[in-house]
């Protein structure tokens, strides 16, 4: 493979017709959540896009993000993209292991210094010098700092890399942190989700490949194209919410009729992701469609935001004890004030001298 070819050239070389290229551009636009009117711009950009080197670091994670990516539903398109990136290090996927693998990483870093794309999944333990997760004897913390230094941009894949995720959940025994907690001064893009939607991962990579830049981000560093709307706003069950039709349990009539899952704890209103439109498994379905509320997995600290089955409008703590305590304290304080008042009144009553007409002239 020649590294100086553009993506366009590369695609045509692999025998794709001009209509095929157009179709590729159209489906890529769809994947990047760009409007179909962007297709010509994508085609033009692909003609000049170069093949980048990619280093993928997996830290404190469950490999769910990689699983999600490799199960992406459109192997042709994503396959084409991955054929045209140089995935130089991904310890789950690469054939090399041990010292050879680390060697590949070092070579890629040296050869593409300042130009490679760093993809991270998993959080980074910081406590006790980061000893809780190491690769080849190197702590995740040290490896991240080392690799990030020469990266053109960093993509944090999954909620762990983006915001700390599950390892960061209270009480966070390993001191897990997100990429952006550690690295500054580099463009960082977060593709959150536990795991992220595969088409969103590839869409973001396609955007970077195509345009050579990171897309527009929201205040949490996520691409607006995918994370610009809440699940609730794009949910097909939204009309039921508006009409006040809710499933009360998972097996009642409302649940069978596909009514809104708000009362069953759906976090759709405060969760920003593309599940409701992109969906999963070849646009087949997503959790709400399957009858379970959104758990908000693409938001920071979603593990610590109250019960998954408590409605958003319900306070997260058990109010029972507070209520009882406050009630007892309030009643006691009231009674205490009451006693003081009574005492005061008794004193007044005792001090009361019978009022006569002579008292009325006030002197």
């Amino acid at each position, binding site marked *: 493979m020649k590294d100086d070819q553009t993506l366009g050239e590369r695609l045509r070389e692999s025998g794709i017709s001009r209509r095929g290229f157009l179709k590729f551009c159209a489906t890529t636009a769809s994947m990047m959540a760009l409007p179909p009117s962007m297709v010509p711009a994508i085609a033009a950009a692909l003609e000049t896009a170069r093949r980048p080197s990619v280093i993928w670091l997996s830290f404190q994670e469950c490999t769910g993000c990689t699983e999600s990516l490799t199960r992406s539903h459109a192997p042709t398109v994503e396959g084409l993209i991955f054929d045209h990136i140089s995935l130089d290090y991904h310890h789950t996927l690469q054939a090399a292991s041990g010292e050879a693998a680390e060697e590949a990483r070092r070579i890629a870093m040296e050869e593409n210094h300042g130009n490679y794309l760093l993809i991270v999944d998993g959080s980074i333990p910081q406590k006790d010098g980061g000893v809780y997760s190491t690769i080849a004897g190197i702590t995740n913390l040290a490896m991240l700092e080392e690799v990030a230094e020469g990266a053109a941009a960093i993509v944090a894949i999954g909620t762990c890399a983006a915001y700390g995720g599950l390892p960061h959940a209270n009480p966070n025994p390993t001191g897990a942190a997100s990429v952006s907690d550690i690295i500054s001064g580099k463009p960082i893009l977060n593709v959150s989700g536990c795991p992220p939607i595969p088409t969103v991962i590839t869409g973001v990579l396609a955007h970077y490949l195509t345009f050579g830049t990171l897309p527009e981000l929201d*205040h*949490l560093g996520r691409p607006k194209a995918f994370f610009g709307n*809440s699940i*609730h*706003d794009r949910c097909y069950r939204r009309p039921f*919410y*508006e*009409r*006040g039709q*809710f499933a009360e349990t998972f097996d009642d009539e409302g649940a069978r009729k596909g009514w809104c899952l*708000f*009362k069953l704890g759906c976090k759709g*209103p*405060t969760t920003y992701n593309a599940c409701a439109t992109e969906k999963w498994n070849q646009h087949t379905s997503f959790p709400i469609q399957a009858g379970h509320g959104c758990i908000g997995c693409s*938001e*920071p*600290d*979603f593990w*610590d*935001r*109250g019960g998954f089955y*408590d*409605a*958003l*409008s*319900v*306070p*997260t*703590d058990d*109010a029972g004890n*507070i*209520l009882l*305590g*406050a*009630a007892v*304290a*309030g*009643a006691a*304080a*009231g*009674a205490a*004030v*009451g*006693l003081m*008042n*009574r005492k005061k*009144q008794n004193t007044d009553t005792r001090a009361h001298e019978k009022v006569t007409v002579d008292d009325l002239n006030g002197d």
Partner: protein
Amino acid sequence: MTADAFLSFARGTGFDWALTIFVFGMLLRLFEVLSLGRKPDLSEGRGSGVQGGLKTIVTRTLPRAAVFAREPVRIINGYVFHIGFLAVLFLYEPHIELFDAKMGLSWPGLPTGIINALGVLTIFSLLLALALRLTSPVLKFLSTGSDYLAWLVTLLPVLTGYLAYNHMLLPYTAMLAVHILSVELLMVVAPFTKLTHMFSFMLARWYQGYRAGHRGVES
């Protein structure tokens, strides 16, 4: 602090504190009132004090025609924001869910569109209430800082709820947090302002009604 963390605070610690202060404060006020006691009425009754008290708690909800004729706008507006506020509070499904989850009580709600419209109505009604307070000589004379504070903390939950639902001003998560926080502000402020009337009005009506009932007087 991210919007999510802010929301978590509002739903967690913030709510705990607000609820504590609200319950503590309201019970304190209630006990303060009741512990002052009342001497038994030794005069021969013409009617039942208990009946009069219970009756007045209900009937005093309606205005006397003679006074209504003098202040129709103020009285109707009073109904509008009271009913609007209570409807939005008690008939919006997510709110009902709160009562259900915390108290095990639930009842049917209204469609969100209607709640939204009621919210707008309530906001305008509260604005009118403020305008009346600022223009009527009597209200202006009577009003203290505490009255305006009570007005503000009543308006905020309705306003922020409306803004959150309609995705205005702030992203939903942040606005929802602001909304919940504004309710908590209301809960904290209520026991120390005239908002205590939300409970004490029943006592006041009871006492006057009891006396009227005992004397066989209309009330």
